[in-house]
C-alpha cells in the first residue's frame, strides 16, 4: 500500500470506513486513563477542557489536510521529502515512525495492564502482550482496507454497547450537581489549559498518513473524514468525562485508573444482569485492537516509505516487535502514566499538529509541488 517512488497512492477506503477507522483510532483511548487525566487537569470543567483540546486538534487536522492535499495523493513521506528535501525528509519520517511507535507502545501497555488488573489478574503481563501482539501484527498485515471495513462493521454495535453502558451505569448514581462549578478551576485555566491538552488527540496525526488512501467522491470529503472522526472521538470522550464526573465526582474520577471500567462495574439491570465488565472489556478489546493494528500498519507504511520499499508488509512484524519491546520497558502502570504525561502529552501536540503547520508554511513558501504540477492538478490531470 505504500506509495511508489513518484506516483500517487491508490485510494481504497470509503467514506464510512475511513470515519469508523479514524474515529476508533483516535477515540479508543476513552477506555484508558485519559478521561481521568483530563479531569485531573480541568476538575469539574474537564469536559470543557476536552472540547477546547478537540478544537485545537481540529486546527491541527486542518493544517495537516492543507499540507497533504497540496501533493495530490502522494504519500505522507513523499510530502515530507518534497517539502524539506530528501535527506531531512527521511530523518523527519524516521522520527515520526518512532513517535508512532511510542504512542502505540503506551496504548498497548495500558491495554494489557488494564486487562490484567481488571479481568485476568493471574495471567502474566508478558503473556497478554505477546498474545495481543501476535493477533495485532497479523491483522495489521492484512492492510488498512480490511481494518477499515471491520471498523465500519463493528463500530455501530459496539458504539451502541458503549452508550448503553454509560446510560445504564450512570442512571442510578447520576448527580448533575457534581459537575459544578461549571468552570472548574477558572475560565482562563480551562481554556488556556485545554490547548496543550490537544495532545490527547495526538492520534489525529494519522489522518495525514491515511489521507491518500481515502477515496474522495466529492470535493472536501477527505477533510470531512478528518474532522468528523476527530469529533466523534471527542464526543465519546466528553460523554465519559461528563458521566464519570457526575457519578463519581471530579476528585474521585481524577484518581480513577479506568473510569469507563468503573462505570461498567456499576452496570446492574434488575438483580440478574450484573458484573458485566468482562463483556465490556471485550468491547474495549475490539476498539483497542483496531487502534493498535492500524498503528502498526501506519508505522510499517511510513517506515517502508522512508526506506523506499514498496512492500510495507515486511515491516509490520519488525515495527510490532519494536512497539512490544517499548511497551514492556516501563516497570509499572504508574511509570506508563508518568511517561505518557511527561514525554508524550506535553509535546505530543507539537509533533502532531504544529510540525505539519510549519511544513505547510514551508511548502507554501517554497511553492512545492511546483507551479506546473499544481496547475495540471487544477485542470484535473495528474501532476506526475
Amino acid at each position, binding site marked *: *500500500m*505504500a506509495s*511508489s*517512488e513518484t506516483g500517487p497512492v*491508490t*485510494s*481504497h477506503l*470509503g*467514506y*464510512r*470506513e475511513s470515519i469508523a477507522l479514524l474515529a476508533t483510532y483516535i477515540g479508543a483511548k476513552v477506555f484508558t486513563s485519559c478521561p481521568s487525566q483530563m479531569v485531573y487537569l480541568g476538575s469539574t470543567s474537564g469536559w470543557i477542557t476536552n472540547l477546547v483540546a478537540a478544537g485545537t486538534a481540529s486546527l491541527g487536522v486542518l493544517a495537516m489536510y492543507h499540507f497533504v492535499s497540496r501533493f495530490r495523493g502522494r504519500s505522507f513521506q513523499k510530502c515530507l521529502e518534497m517539502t524539506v528535501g530528501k535527506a531531512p525528509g527521511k530523518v523527519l519520517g524516521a522520527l515520526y515512525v518512532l513517535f508512532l511507535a511510542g504512542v502505540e507502545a503506551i496504548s498497548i501497555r495500558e491495554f494489557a495492564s488494564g*486487562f490484567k488488573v481488571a*479481568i*485476568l489478574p493471574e*495471567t502474566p503481563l508478558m*503473556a*497478554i502482550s505477546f*498474545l*495481543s501482539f501476535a*493477533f495485532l501484527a*497479523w*491483522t495489521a*498485515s*492484512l*492492510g488498512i*482496507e*480490511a*481494518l477499515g*471495513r*471491520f471498523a*465500519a*462493521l*463493528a463500530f455501530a454495535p459496539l458504539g451502541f454497547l458503549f452508550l448503553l453502558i454509560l446510560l445504564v451505569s450512570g442512571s442510578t448514581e447520576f448527580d448533575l450537581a457534581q459537575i459544578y462549578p461549571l468552570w472548574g478551576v477558572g475560565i482562563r485555566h480551562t481554556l488556556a489549559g485545554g490547548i496543550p491538552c490537544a495532545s490527547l488527540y495526538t492520534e489525529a496525526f494519522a489522518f495525514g498518513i491515511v489521507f491518500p488512501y481515502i*477515496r474522495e*467522491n466529492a470535493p472536501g470529503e477527505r477533510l470531512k473524514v478528518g474532522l468528523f472522526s476527530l469529533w466523534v472521538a471527542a464526543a465519546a470522550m466528553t460523554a465519559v468525562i461528563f458521566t464519570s464526573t457526575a457519578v463519581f465526582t471530579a476528585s474521585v474520577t481524577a484518581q480513577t485508573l479506568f473510569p469507563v471500567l468503573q462505570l461498567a462495574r456499576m452496570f446492574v439491570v434488575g438483580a*440478574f444482569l*450484573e*458484573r*458485566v465488565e*468482562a*463483556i465490556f*472489556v*471485550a468491547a474495549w*478489546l*475490539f476498539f483497542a*485492537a*483496531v487502534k493498535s*493494528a492500524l498503528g502498526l500498519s501506519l508505522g510499517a507504511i511510513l517506515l517502508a516509505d522512508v*526506506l*523506499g*520499499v*514498496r*512492500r*510495507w*508488509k*515486511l515491516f509490520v512484524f519488525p515495527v510490532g516487535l519494536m512497539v512490544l519491546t517499548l511497551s514492556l520497558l516501563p516497570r509499572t502502570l504508574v511509570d506508563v502514566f508518568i511517561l505518557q504525561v511527561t514525554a508524550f502529552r506535553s509535546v505530543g501536540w507539537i509533533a502532531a499538529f504544529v510540525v505539519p503547520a510549519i511544513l505547510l508554511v514551508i511548502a507554501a513558501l517554497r511553492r512545492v509541488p511546483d507551479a506546473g504540477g499544481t496547475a495540471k492538478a487544477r485542470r484535473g490531470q495528474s501532476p506526475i
Partner: protein
Amino acid sequence: MRSRGQKSLWRRLVDWLNEERPPAFSLDPNYPGPLPSEPGVRCPAGESESHSRDGMDRSQEGRGAKAGSPARVEIRRRKREEEPKSKGFPGVPGRVAGRLGRAFAASFTLRRKKKDAGGSDEPAGGSDERRNGSSEGGSPASQRKSSRQFTANFDANLRQMRTVLHADKSSDVIIRRFRLPAGKGLRAALVYIDALIDRRTVNVDILRPLSYASAEMAARMSRAVADDRIEDLLPSASVRREKSVDKAAEEILLGAVALLIEGISSAVLVDAKGWEKRSVSIPQVERVVRGPHQAFVEALEVNVALVRRMVRTPDLVCEYLEIGEMSKTQVAILYIEGVTNRKLVDEVKRRIACVKGSEIIESGMLDQFLDEPRFNLIPSTASTERPDRIAAHLAEGHVAVIVDHSPFALVIPCTVTVFVHNPEDFYVRWPYGTFLRLIRLLGTFIAMVLPAFYVAAINFHPEMIPSVLLWAIASSREVVPTPLVAEVLAGEIAFDFIREAGVRVPSPIGPTIGIVGALLVGEAAVRASLLSPVVVIVIAITAISSFTIPNQEATFMVRIMRYVFIAVGASFGLLGIGLVLYAFGVYLCWVRNFGVLFMSPFAFSARAGPDIVTRGPLWRMETRPAFLRVEDARRQPWIARQWIPRPRRGLERHATIRPTRDES
C-alpha cells in the same frame, strides 16, 4: 570496490522488493489496483494471459527480471513463439481472446468461422455445440494428440481406433463390423463402449437404416453418395463428422457411436448415450419446509434442464467447458446475459480454462482449484444442491457452475449472504423470513462460541455468572474428575463422532446412532461422572444450533472455529475469545472472492436492497445487489404490485437508481 554503474546490495534489495506484482481481480471500476496484501490471481505461464485492469499482458512477469526489462521482453517473446497462436477474428478484440485463454480463443474462432461460412452458429443437436466447443478448445494435451487423422484406408482407421481405445484389452469396447448395401457392399464398422450407449438407439436408429436401406437407395449408393448422404440415412438428432481419431475417441467416451465406412476419411459420430442415472429426488442437505423439493443429480444435462425450467429466459446462457486432463469432465457455466457482470463471467471462464488438474470429477474439487489464497478457510464458491437456489442467484447476477457427475452446483462468487440466507426465507412472508434469519444468525454465533464462552466464564470470569447459577454448576461439577476444558472437548469430539457416524452408516440405522449417542452415551457419561449435566446441555445446544446453518461449508468452518475458540477460551478467557473473534472478523473483511468482498454487503456500503440481515418485502426488492456490479441493476419494475392504484408516497425519489456514496 564496486564498479561504476553497478548497483549496491541495498539498491538491488530495494529493487527486488519493489518489483511489480500482477493486480488482484476486482469488479469494482473504482478499485484502482491491488493492495500488496491481497492475493493476486495468475494464470499458469504459457497457458493463458493474465487478466489485468489495464489490459496489459502480465502473464510472464515473474520473479526474475524486472517488468519491461530486456530479459523479460525476451522471455515473453520466446513464450509467445512457443504458444500456438489463436487466430483473431474481426469484431472481437485480441485482449478478449487473451482474457479467456487460448482454449477459448480457439473455440470462438471455430464458431466465428462457421458463422462466416454461412452456417448457423447453433448446431443441429443440442449437445453438438458442447462437443465443438470442448473438442476444439480442449486441453493442450488433446491438441497435441489431435494430429492423428482418419484416412480413406478403412483397415488403418479401424486399427487406429483399436489402438486409441485399447480395444484389445478393454472388453467393453465394441467394434461391430457389417457391410453397407451399396455396390459390392462397402465395409463399415460401429465403434462404441457398451456401457455408455443405449442399445436400442444403436439397433433402431443406426444399424437398421443402414442395413435395410431401400433398394433404390442401395442401387445409388456408390462410395461418393455414401460419403455425401450418410447423415441423411441416420435418423438421429445429433450426427456429425470428425476427422481426428483422438477427438472421435473422446466422443465415444462420452456416449457417441463412431461409424467408419470404407473409403471415407472421417468418422460419423452419432449421439447414442444411454447410461443409467439417478432420477431427480428431494434434497438431502438443504431441506426446506416450503419450497421446491427437487435436488440436482449426477447428470449434467438433467441439472441444466432443472435450472432452465426455472429461469425461462433466452438470456440464460449455458457455456460448456472441459476440465481434467484425464477425466475430461464437462462443466457448464451458466449466467444471464445482460445481467451478470461481463468481467465476472470472463474471469470465471478464464480461471476454469486455466485449471489443469488431472481428475476433476466433483464440483468440490473444482472449487479447490479456483481458491484464491492458498490457505483459505472460506471457499471462493458456494455449493448448493437446489436448482431454485441457483435460479435465484443467477437472477441476482451470480455465475453458476455445474460439473458433470456432481449433484452440487457452484455459485460464484461466494459472499456471506450465501452462507446466511436460505431459499425458504423468500418463500414465506417477510416477517417470518426475517425471524428465521435472525434465529439462524444467533444459531451460528452460538454454535461457534458457546462452549468456549462457557469454559472461559467458569475458568476465568465466574463473577459474570449469577450466584445461584454458579452454585448449581459447581455442585454438578463436584463429582467430575476431569478439568472443564477436557470435559468440553471430550463432549464436542464425541458429538462429532456421532455426527460423522450418522452420515456414514446405512440409512435404516442412521437415526439409531443419533439416539444411542445422544441418550445412552450422554446419560451414561453423566451417571459415570465423566461429564457434568451442564456440559451435556451446552454441547446439545451447540449441536442443535449448528444445524441451523444452511450451508455445508459454513458448518465446516464453524466446527473448526469452535475448537479454536475453545482452545483460546481455556487459555486466555474472554481475552482470547475476543482476540480470535477480532482477527477472524478482520480476516473475513479481507477475503475477496472473484473480486467481490466476502463480507458484502455487511461490511461494504453498497446498496443491497432490504435483503441483508433482515429480509424486506419482496415487492421492495426492486434492485439487484450492487456489490455484484451487475449490468442491469433493475430486478423488477419500480411498482411491482401494479394492482395498487397509486404509487407509494416518496416513490419519485427512487425512480432512478442512483449510486450510493461509495459506489459512485
